[in-house]
C-alpha cells in the first residue's frame, strides 16, 4: 500500500478507527474506505486485532503497586517532599544510558584528578628546590663557608649571587669574651673551655642549635641590625637566602654561626627585632666524645714518638726500617684524622648554630604600582596557556605511565562486564 495509489496512509486508517482524526480527515478516510477494498481489509484487520485484545482480561495490579502509586500521588498533590531527595528519586528512574553516561563522567573525572594529582606530586619543583637547599648546606668542617644572597630589591627578578668568605677572618677565638647571656640558662657555662687542656677541665662541651622565627615590621632596618649584630659578636652567616617576591612579604632564611659565649646576647638582640613566632633550642653533649678523641690522639702521638725513637736509635735490616716507616706513616694519618675531628667537634661546641627565619609583616599597598590592563591581561593569558599546556602534558604523561595498566584492567574486566550487561538486558527484556 502506498500513497500514490492510496491517498490515505495506513496510519490514518488506524487513526480514523481510533477516532483520532479531525472531522474533515475522518470524512476523507471514510469515503476512501468505501471505495478501496484494500484499505477496507486493513481496517478489518485492525478491528480484528483490537477485538482479540479486548477478549484478554488483564489481572489487576498488585496491592503493593497500587498503594505505592497512591502514596506518591497524594504526596505530590499536597506538595510535600517525598522521603528521599529529588535527585535520588530521579536517579532511581534513570535509564541505562543515563547511568552509563553518569558513571563514565565520574570515572573520567576521577582519572583526570588522579592524573593531575600524581603529576603534581611527582613533578613538584618545590621538592627539587628543597632538596637543593639541603644539598647546598656546607659541610661543617669546611673552613670556607658559602653564602647565597638573593637580590632583595622589589623591582626586577630575584637574582642569586654566591660569595665566599673565610670565617677565621671575622672570628677571633682569642678575643671571645667569656660572658654568657643566656636568658633561659640552658647553656650556662658552656663554650668557655680550653680545647688544648680539655682533659683537665671538667666543663662540659655542648653543641647548641637554635631555631628562631621572627616577624618584623621594618624589614630593611632589621636586615641592617642583623648584619651589625653579626659583626659585633664575631659571628657569621654560613648560609643566607633572602626572598623578595612581588606582592608577598620579604623574608630571610639564614643559618648563623655564633660564638657560644655570645649566643645569649645575640639571641636577645635578635628577639627585639620583632615578634618571636617560634623558638626552639637544643643541645648535644659531646664532652665524652671529645675526651675519647683526645685520649686516642695522645696515645697515637706517643706511639709516633716511640716509633721515631726506634728509627733513630736502632739499626738493622733495610726491611725492618721500611716497616717502621710504614707504621709511622699509618700512625701519622690517624693522628691527622683525629686532629681534624677534634677541630670539628670544638668548632661545633664553640659556635652555636642559629637557624633564623626572618619574615616581614606584610601589608598590602593600595598605591602599589600595578601593571596596565593590557599587560596584566597578556600575562594572565600567557599563564593560562602555560597552565593549560602543563595540565595537558601531565594528563598525557599520566596515560603514558599508567595507560597500559588501565587498558589491561579494562580488558580483564571487559569480558565479564559485557556478559553480565547482556544477561541483564536479556532479563530486562524478558520481564
Amino acid at each position, binding site marked *: 500500500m502506498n500513497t500514490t495509489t492510496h491517498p490515505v496512509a*495506513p*496510519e490514518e486508517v*488506524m*487513526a480514523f478507527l*481510533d477516532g*483520532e482524526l479531525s472531522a474533515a480527515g475522518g470524512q476523507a478516510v471514510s469515503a476512501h474506505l468505501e471505495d478501496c477494498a484494500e484499505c477496507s481489509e486493513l481496517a478489518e*484487520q*485492525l478491528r*480484528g*486485532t*483490537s477485538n*482479540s*485484545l*479486548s*477478549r*484478554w*482480561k*488483564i*489481572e489487576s*495490579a*498488585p496491592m503493593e*503497586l497500587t498503594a*505505592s*502509586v497512591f502514596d*506518591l*500521588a497524594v504526596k*505530590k*498533590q499536597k506538595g510535600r517532599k517525598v522521603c528521599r531527595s529529588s535527585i535520588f528519586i530521579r536517579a*532511581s*528512574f534513570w535509564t541505562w544510558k543515563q547511568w552509563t553516561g553518569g558513571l563514565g563522567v565520574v570515572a573520567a573525572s576521577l582519572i583526570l584528578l588522579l592524573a593531575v594529582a600524581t603529576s603534581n606530586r611527582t613533578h613538584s619543583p618545590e621538592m627539587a628546590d628543597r632538596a637543593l637547599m639541603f644539598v647546598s648546606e656546607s659541610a661543617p668542617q669546611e673552613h670556607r663557608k658559602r653564602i647565597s644572597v638573593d637580590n632583595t630589591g622589589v623591582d626586577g627578578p630575584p637574582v642569586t649571587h654566591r660569595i665566599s668568605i673565610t670565617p677565621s677572618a671575622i672570628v677571633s677565638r682569642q678575643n671571645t669574651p667569656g660572658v654568657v647571656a643566656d636568658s633561659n640558662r640552658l647553656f650556662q657555662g658552656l663554650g668557655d673551655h680550653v680545647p688544648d687542656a680539655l682533659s683537665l677541665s671538667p666543663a662540659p662541651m655542648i653543641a647548641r642549635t637554635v631555631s628562631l622565627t621572627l616577624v618584623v615590621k621594618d624589614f630593611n632596618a632589621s636586615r641592617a641590625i642583623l648584619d651589625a649584630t653579626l659583626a659585633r659578636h664575631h659571628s657569621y652567616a654560613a648560609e643566607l637566602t633572602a626572598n623578595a617576591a612581588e606582592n608577598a612579604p620579604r623574608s630571610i632564611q639564614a643559618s648563623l654561626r655564633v660564638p657560644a659565649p655570645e649566643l645569649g646576647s645575640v639571641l636577645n638582640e635578635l628577639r627585639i627585632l620583632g615578634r618571636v613566632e617560634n623558638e626552639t633550642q637544643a643541645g648535644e653533649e659531646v664532652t665524652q666524645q671529645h675526651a675519647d678523641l683526645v685520649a686516642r690522639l695522645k696515645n697515637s702521638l706517643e706511639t709516633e714518638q716511640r716509633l721515631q725513637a726506634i728509627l733513630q736509635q736502632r739499626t738493622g735490616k733495610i726491611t725492618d726500617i721500611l716497616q717502621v716507616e710504614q707504621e709511622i706513616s699509618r700512625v701519622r694519618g690517624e693522628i691527622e684524622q683525629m686532629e681534624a675531628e677534634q677541630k670539628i667537634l670544638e668548632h661545633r661546641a664553640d659556635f652555636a648554630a642559629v637557624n633564623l627565619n626572618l619574615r616581614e609583616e606584610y601589608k598590602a599597598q593600595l598605591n602599589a604600582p600595578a601593571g596596565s590592563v593590557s599587560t596584566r591581561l597578556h600575562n594572565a593569558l600567557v599563564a593560562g596557556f602555560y597552565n593549560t599546556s602543563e595540565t595537558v602534558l601531565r594528563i598525557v604523561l599520566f596515560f603514558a605511565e599508567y595507560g597500559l595498566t588501565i587498558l589491561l584492567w579494562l580488558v580483564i574486566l571487559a569480558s565479564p562486564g559485557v556478559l*553480565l550487561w547482556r*544477561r*541483564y*538486558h536479556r*532479563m*530486562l*527484556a*524478558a*520481564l
Partner: protein
Amino acid sequence: MSLAHSFELNLYAIGFKLLRGHWRKAAFRATFLGVARQFLEPAAQHTTEAAVSLRHALRKLGRTDREILFLREFEGLSYAEIAELLSLPMNTVRSRLFRARMALRELLTAPAVKTASREFAESEGRV
C-alpha cells in the same frame, strides 16, 4: 486538559516509573544475585488457548510498542496523552501503534498459533 485528566496522567506516569524500577531491580537481582524471576502471569489459570497465544504474541513485541498498545487498547488513552506520558512525538506514537498492531496480527497467524497451542497444551498438562 482538565485537572482530573491531568491527575490521571500523573498517576499513569507514577505507575510507569514504579513498574520500570521494579523491572530493573528484578533484572538486576536475576543477573547479579541469581534470584529467580517472578513473573506475573495474567490469567495463568482458567486460561484459554486464544489467551495464551495472545500473551505469547505480546511478549514478542518491543517494550515501547507494547506499552503504547496497552495504553491505547486497555486504558483508552488518546495518541496525544500517550505521547505526553511516554515523552514521544505524536507521529511516533501513531506509527509505533500501527506497527505494533500489524506485528501482533502477524504473530497471531498460523505459526504463532501453533506455538501457542503447544504452550497451551503444556500448561494444561501442568495444571
